[in-house]
């Protein structure tokens, strides 16, 4: 199934160049390029070969780890994508971690105090967070913390060689991305926790005299976290994609902004390579989620074995 998805995506990407109007070579080279140069570049890019041959070439290359060369300065796409990828991945995972660290306890808190004032306040917050798009959150954070207060930098990602500086550049974008997911996670955790809290084994634990917080975090959460893990898997895909807006607002280098700029410049090899990497990461994330599911919930394992 996973393999089928990857194959379909790659075929589509291979054909992409020809689906979109406009001659990529002319766009890339600009108005003063001679026809001879345009022809030569077209031949080098393999754009004159029949389409199926181009797709097969792309497959073969990708299997070797060679995603082609970009149209503009003939640099290897793998290197270009590779230099941008870490920034997007770090941003997505940091946002995910932040969302989990804030959202899960928030959900548990609300679940252990159902229908109280705190629960309602938390619900309100969660829903507000869910409805705020990442770019709106990003702009607000930017205005408040970078422009008005000047506490944190507004643009760029900093240098990986200087972790402190990199972290400072990461705070606002990661928060912007995380906000929506804090809301989602809080809601999901709350709902599944409430379901679990009504179960017999929880009542038994209480009857044993165990402390409420222990019951909540150690017993109920462990079971309630299963649907949350599924959500986290989906959120990773969204974070990788939604990172584009945040990357543009904060002028961070990353896969999203790389692909957007490449599309405008008709730099197809980069679009292809970049989208392929994102697709692969998405697929891998979902695979990891499935496996974690299996690990966390013995019932799934047992069912699978019984089959």
């Amino acid at each position: 199934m996973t393999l089928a998805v990857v194959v379909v995506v790659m075929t589509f990407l291979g054909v992409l160049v020809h689906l979109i109007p406009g001659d990529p070579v002319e766009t890339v080279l600009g108005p003063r390029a001679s026809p001879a140069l345009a022809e030569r570049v077209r031949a080098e890019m393999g754009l004159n070969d029949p389409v199926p041959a181009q797709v097969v070439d792309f497959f073969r290359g990708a299997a070797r780890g060679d995603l082609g060369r970009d149209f503009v300065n003939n640099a290897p796409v793998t290197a270009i994508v590779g230099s941008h990828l870490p920034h997007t991945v770090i941003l997505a995972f940091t946002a995910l971690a932040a969302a989990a660290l804030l959202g899960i306890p928030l959900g548990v808190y609300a679940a252990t105090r159902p229908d109280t004032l705190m629960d309602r306040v938390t619900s309100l917050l969660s829903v507000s967070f869910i409805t705020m798009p990442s770019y709106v959150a990003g702009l607000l954070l930017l205005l408040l913390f970078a422009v008005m207060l000047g506490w944190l930098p507004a643009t760029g990602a900093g240098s990986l060689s200087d972790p402190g500086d990199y972290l400072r550049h990461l705070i606002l974008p990661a928060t912007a991305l995380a906000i929506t997911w804090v809301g989602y996670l809080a809601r999901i955790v709350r709902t599944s926790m409430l379901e679990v809290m009504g179960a017999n084994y929880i009542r038994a634990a209480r009857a044993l005299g165990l402390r409420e917080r222990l019951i909540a975090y150690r017993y109920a959460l462990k079971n309630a976290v299963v649907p949350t893990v599924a959500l986290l898997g989906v959120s990773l895909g969204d974070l990788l994609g939604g990172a584009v807006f945040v990357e543009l607002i904060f002028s961070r280098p990353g896969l999203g902004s790389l692909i957007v700029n490449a599309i405008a410049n008709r730099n197809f090899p980069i679009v292809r390579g970049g989208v392929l990497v994102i697709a692969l990461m998405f697929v891998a994330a979902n695979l990891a989620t499935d496996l974690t599911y299996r690990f966390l919930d013995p019932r799934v394992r047992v069912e699978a074995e019984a089959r």
Partner: protein
Amino acid sequence: MDGSQQRWVPRSPVVGRLAIDRREFLRKVGIVGVVAGVGVPLLTACDPAEDPGATPENGEAPEGGTGILNIRLVQDIENLDPAFMPATVDDAVMLCVAEGLVGFRPGGTDVVNVLAEEFESSDDGQTHEFQLREGIAFHGDYGEVTAEDVKFSFERIAGLTDPPIESTYRDDWATLEGVEVTGTYTGVIRLSEPFAPLMLTTLPGHAGLVISQAAWEERGEDVATDPIGSGPYEFVEWERGQLILLRRFPDWGEASLEIADEPQWEEIRLRPIADDGAADIAVETGEVDFGLVSHASVDRFTGDDSFEVTQQTTFDYGWVGFNVTDEALADVNVRRAIRLALDVDSMIEAAFEGHTTRAHALVAPDMPIGHWDDAPTYDRDVEAAQALLDEAGVSDLTLEMSIVEEPGSRIIAEIVQQNLAELGITVNINLRERAEMRENLENLQLFYFSFSNSADPSWATVWFTSDQIGEWNFMSWSNEDFDQLHEEALTELDEDERHDMYVRMQEIMDEEAVAAWVMYRTHHYAHSPNLEPSLLTPRYGKYLAWDFRTA
């Protein structure tokens, strides 16, 4: 529902020994975590060494080049090889890294000697002898600038190498026969025909930059993003999408001192920020010291005392054009009528917030030659326009107005639509992709477009010649006199003669009403009042970063 009052006994030996229970532990860790989470960024924000906004030149004048200059680029660099440079930002970088035989002085179009100690042209314009300054070093131990490097630099662009490199800028050296090396530092540039743009655009422009043959041959394609020149700044590092770092070249041969004084910056950092909104913020927070801002932001910066806005009217032009082969627009009176009905002043106000210069003809006022002082001004006159339409016997026209995504295009299209509605002409606006539009030029009717331009008018007139029909002559207009004048003006060396020829060409365009001129593109740069930028309008790169000064 906490019924139990029992204290939970900690299982962990560590926590047990500290004799606090888990709840206390978590609470304390939580407090520490919150404090750290808020405190650390605050602490580091207070550290001036780490604060990107605290650059020395904001209000302080460093002695002997110890400052760091941060500049916003509108996009990331793509290819720094002068033969292939696709965008203005590439030239902006190379202006600091490389030098030519001659160069433009900032603030005008004067051309002065740079690498050339002496430069002499023959009367027929076909031989140009140069003598290089001696001892000018290339960066990175690539030796001195020699006549061989000059030969290499120019001949490769002209397509004279084997195999030819197919440079995008081959036309700049269209008539080059070769560069003859007569000594280590001397040589002769030989042209098959006189070429007027040579001294106005080729030699002082990026196609005239002298690069190191040794470096180019050794580095191959890597020179596109790691070039070697003789300029005051070395290309040090490129963090893709983030930063281009240039550092003062300690062994600079100082060939450019006739252009400007010794630069004061230790480092120049160019930051690609594609989004205008993000760029505005970067300027406001001081993360960049100088950056191009959009028309919409200009008022905000001019109204703020901590910033200054420098304006630059470029040679780039925008116009509403007519496809003269379209049956509706083939009649010149129809085109004249439309031209007379358009309210260009409103377009400037609405589409550019009034922050741009109105154009009345092809060649901008600051161009060294070719500006038509007496170009007619077409102010909106609906009655006269209607009369022309009636004369043409045309009524109830429906036309398509094609635009692409570029600043101001949508509003201009809407104004055209409104203006022409009063003539009974229905206009449908069609927003298109550049590449797609260029593939369907036969179907064009009305359009708004803008071209970039450099200091020689031939680079503007060329796009309106018959050769360019189906390419960049969107009007599909063909006029023999115009074509002939364009050819002749390329080889005419007498400046006054040339000037008259370009004026005549613009008169022809006006008579045939092929265009309703709208604007000359104006750049606005926001910066601190303590920073004095240095503008270089004739160069693609538009400003000379190394000549920025603290006031």
